[in-house]
């Protein structure tokens, strides 16, 4: 590990000042990703600004009945929160599907957004990697790429974003709250993470001198209450998603799809919000056929790199599984209501 200075400010203003004064500084949340990468020599910050003492640890209601999740809320606290479990079910399920209990206890909401890819070549500095060292190459493309992207990837990089929580947040139309030297700003979740393009080293719209303060969720709906998260992985716990799907359905009086949210994990450089597939489904039948077709539409332009080819058939199947579960929940809910 490269030596660094350590700071633990008690206010957001102090934290911003530290970031402004010290180029090469990084924020430290739970450290479950950053410390690993520092020990590997992938991240080499000169200064660490620990956010643990910032007053960002609460989940509170917003004026419109939504939720504001402070950047320091642990993954465990988020998943266990009563309203998250009741009103934003896919978010609770997605967060619980991630990592292990010990890691979730430690991991923060802000840190989860900014966790880096698990690409084997990125995490070992001995390899070239365009994300780590722009211009050095991408050994994943003709190397072992079972966990890599099939959608939205570029010549420069085929890595995936590993988060489960973020997939649900993208589907729920969450909003990221950011503060920085220029003041506060908000970014819709689907716009927060970026596709790799020519600059895979730039992963989000966050600037190095900015801080995530919270993620807000819009008011709940039947759709968010009946939503699901389905994660397909190599083992039942403590494994990243090969493909995951966050899905929510609202049914009209005629049983047709009135509204739908669909996002995929494990397939792209960012949580993959499937806007086009949502449009396909909206107003149509809530049938297995329609679900499969929507899934197929998502992978119509997908590219496999060999070991990850299986994700192309797996993604639409998982979409159908998730939508099927969401449908069952929606039907049960409307049955209960009647």
């Amino acid at each position, binding site marked *: 590990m490269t*030596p660094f200075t350590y700071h633990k400010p008690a206010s957001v203003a102090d934290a911003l000042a530290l970031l402004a004064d010290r180029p090469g500084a990084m924020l430290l949340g739970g450290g479950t990703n950053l410390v690993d990468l520092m020990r590997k020599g992938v991240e080499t910050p000169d200064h660490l600004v620990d956010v643990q003492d910032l007053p960002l640890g609460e989940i509170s209601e917003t004026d419109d009945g939504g939720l504001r999740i402070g950047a320091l809320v642990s993954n465990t606290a988020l998943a266990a929160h009563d309203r998250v479990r009741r009103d934003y079910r896919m978010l609770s399920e997605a967060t619980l599907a991630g990592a292990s209990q010990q890691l979730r206890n430690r991991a923060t909401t802000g840190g989860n957004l900014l966790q880096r890819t698990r690409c084997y070549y990125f995490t070992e500095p001995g390899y070239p990697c365009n994300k780590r060292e722009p211009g050095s190459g991408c050994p994943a493309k003709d190397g072992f790429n079972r966990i890599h992207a099939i959608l939205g990837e570029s010549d420069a990089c085929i890595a995936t974003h590993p988060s489960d929580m973020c997939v649900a947040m993208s589907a729920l139309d969450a909003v990221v709250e950011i503060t920085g030297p220029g003041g506060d700003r908000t970014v819709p979740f689907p716009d927060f993470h970026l596709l790799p393009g020519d600059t895979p080293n730039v992963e989000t719209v966050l600037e190095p001198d900015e801080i995530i303060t919270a993620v807000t969720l819009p008011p709940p709906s039947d759709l968010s209450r009946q939503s699901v998260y389905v994660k397909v992985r190599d083992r*039942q716990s403590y494994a990243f998603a090969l493909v995951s799907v966050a899905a929510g359905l609202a049914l009209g009086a005629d049983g047709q799809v009135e509204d739908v949210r669909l996002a995929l994990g494990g397939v792209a450089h960012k949580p993959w919000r499937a806007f086009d597939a949502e449009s396909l489904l909206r107003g149509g039948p809530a049938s297995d056929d329609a679900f499969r077709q929507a899934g197929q539409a998502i992978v119509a332009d997908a590219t496999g790199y060999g070991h990850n080819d299986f994700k192309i058939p*797996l993604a639409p199947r998982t979409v159908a599984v998730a939508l099927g579960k969401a449908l069952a929940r929606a039907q049960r809910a409307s049955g209960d209501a009647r």
Partner: protein
Amino acid sequence: MTTTQTTPIIGQATRRVTGPLKVSGQATYAAEFSKDFGPELAHGVLVTTMAASGRISSIDTEQAEAAPGVVKVFTHLNAPELPYEEPVMRPQVQPQVGDPLRPLQTDQIFFSGQTVAVVVAETLEQAEHAATLVRVTVDETAADTDLHAAHQRPEADEKQDTPRVSAPKKPAENGKMTGRPSDVTVGDPDAAFESAAHTVDLDVEIKTLVNHPIEPHATIAWWEGNTLTVHDKTQWVDNARHKLALAFGIRQEEIDLKVDALNTVKDAVEGVLGVQESSVRVITPFTGGGFGSGLRTWPHTFLTAMAARELDRPVRLVLTRAEMFTSVGHRPHNLQRVRLAADADGRLQSVIHEGWQETSLYEEYTMNLLNTTRMAYATPNLRTTYRLVPLNIQTPTSMRAPGECSGAHALEVAMDALAYEIGMDPLELRRRNNATHDVQGTPFSSKHLAEAYDLGAEKIGWADRPLAPRSMRDGDDWVGLGVSSTFYPANRMKASASARLLPDGTAQVHSAASDMGPGTYVSMTMVAADTLGLPLDKVKFALGDSDFPHAPVHGGSMTMASVGPAVKAACEAAIQAVIELAVDDDASPLAGASADDVRLEHGELIGPGGRETLMAAVARHGEPVEATASLGPNKLQALMPSDYAFHSYGCVFARVRVDARTGEPRVEKVVAVNDVGKVINPTTAASQTIGGVVMGIGMALMEEAILDPNFHRYANDTLAEYHALTNRDAPEIEAHFVGEPDYELNPLGARGVGEIATVGTSSAVVNAIYHATGARVLSLPATLDKLL
């Protein structure tokens, strides 16, 4: 009044005597002995290479040496040349052909991840940081790690300078074919195959698996004059001591004497040699797993001792998890072709099993890949062919049931395929071919496999299983039941122990054995207590110290069968010594009796004229009574002439679910039934079995070290990405035992459980997946992409 034990202990379910120490953090593992040292303890960190082949052209250590806290950076340019002598007879844990890797003694690079420097600093963090500042340049040459391509190359002839596929250069040394012969043929397997009613021909692949004990390998070494003491994560303190002594050129005679002597205790050695002290001592009371990774003594242990000597201070070195992939061996990647032929009734007519296994460029690692095939089923015609393929990898090593685990997997998957080819129940096929002799006609000592089949079938509900694949569906899941037989050789080697009976009514029993988890501590305590007629808490068994009487390697499932009888014999010898004292002692009720007329029963010495407890006699004597004993064959039992072939037998049944939409496989239940002779401790035997099954499921479904094809390096070298089973993946597991004590093997009748427990599970799971889905997975692991 001294306490005695009036009921038998052996065979009773007994908890680990070390359990409380372990769960309360008081069991001290190698690296944790740092608590015994102050700031004089320096910390070593390895520098490894990215390049997989070539020669080091330069190492720049200037920056590292200037970093805070750095004491010294050792490289091949400044490390002392060490004698690194090899023993005349290499221990069986070490390849018989080739030379071990000796980092810092050469500039040659054989594989990615090879150690090229050691940084020693005042703190671990300082050493870790400085290690990142060492710049290594390698003049790279083309590396080869592609087993698929390499195994098809023509076989080696003497004159080639590049390594090629070859038969083992030092094959089996006995006529019983229990070793690793390159070719074994019985009858005319090809003709029988051609003319048989039913045949299968399968190519099976088993990828690289890594032992990954929970405790990383670690060493603390320090010197006092010419005396070296080491805490090392090892499964064999005696061999570590021997190898260290040879590496540093210390007192060969003393070491050999200890290993060869019948029942040497330290004093005896010193007496003979006239030396004051033992010059190398390895102390490892606790070993946090190993599965074979602790059998050999690996380069980092020598490097730590070297650094300690050069710096004249204690040095501690702990491998990182990534280094655990390339420093302490692995289960080698192998390819197998299995051809089976049967007549219309399902009786095997021909078995042809070929295996190609990777090894390193500097050593020829061999394992019992095809041995199971030569004893598992009755067949008139058979051929096994074993070939080694040198690649740019570290030397593989034994991993729980080395060879057997991979070879039996392929055989048992082929047996399943043959059953379906015939249209016969796969369990029935195995029953019909149940053998009474190995392929050379040697009868098995004691075999109760048929009972195991019956019990397992009952427990898993085999009778209700429809034969056809893809015929059991529950909701979104395909459900399947699979079976596999399991076999593992029963071995035994000479072991020694000492027993010391103290006037306070307790006994101390010692042997240089190890306990990497199976419960050696408790089982040996049980044997001693049972023999002495003492309650468990009066007996203190200690192991893991090379100054204790010699024990063979803690591997090959032979600790119980080897050390157990030695413990029993040492206790019996101590009892005899007490009897001799008592009959000579007027104060004893046994006074005047002939020693031959006195026997021990439930802790009481009973003679013609009276009785007293064993420990009362010791107490009156007022001084400890001590005896040592040593017994067992000088070589592995399997290599000794014998009227019997010694094996353990069993079967594994698995019920799996495969999600019909996503392909995700899950194991729902496993029933393992084994015949291991006498079960000394049902608790630890069951827990070993459960652990073995867990490991087998991991092998079947998820474990794989993935070699990047261009960089020749394991890509997934963390425990986050190298998937071992989690609790959530572990199903309901039942462990049952059948059979009877095998007194042909040893006086305890015990054969050992550790390895047979892991053979067979992977094949049962893969066979169950076939039954569930109709997909025959031939290349492990059976990940969901193979089941979509």
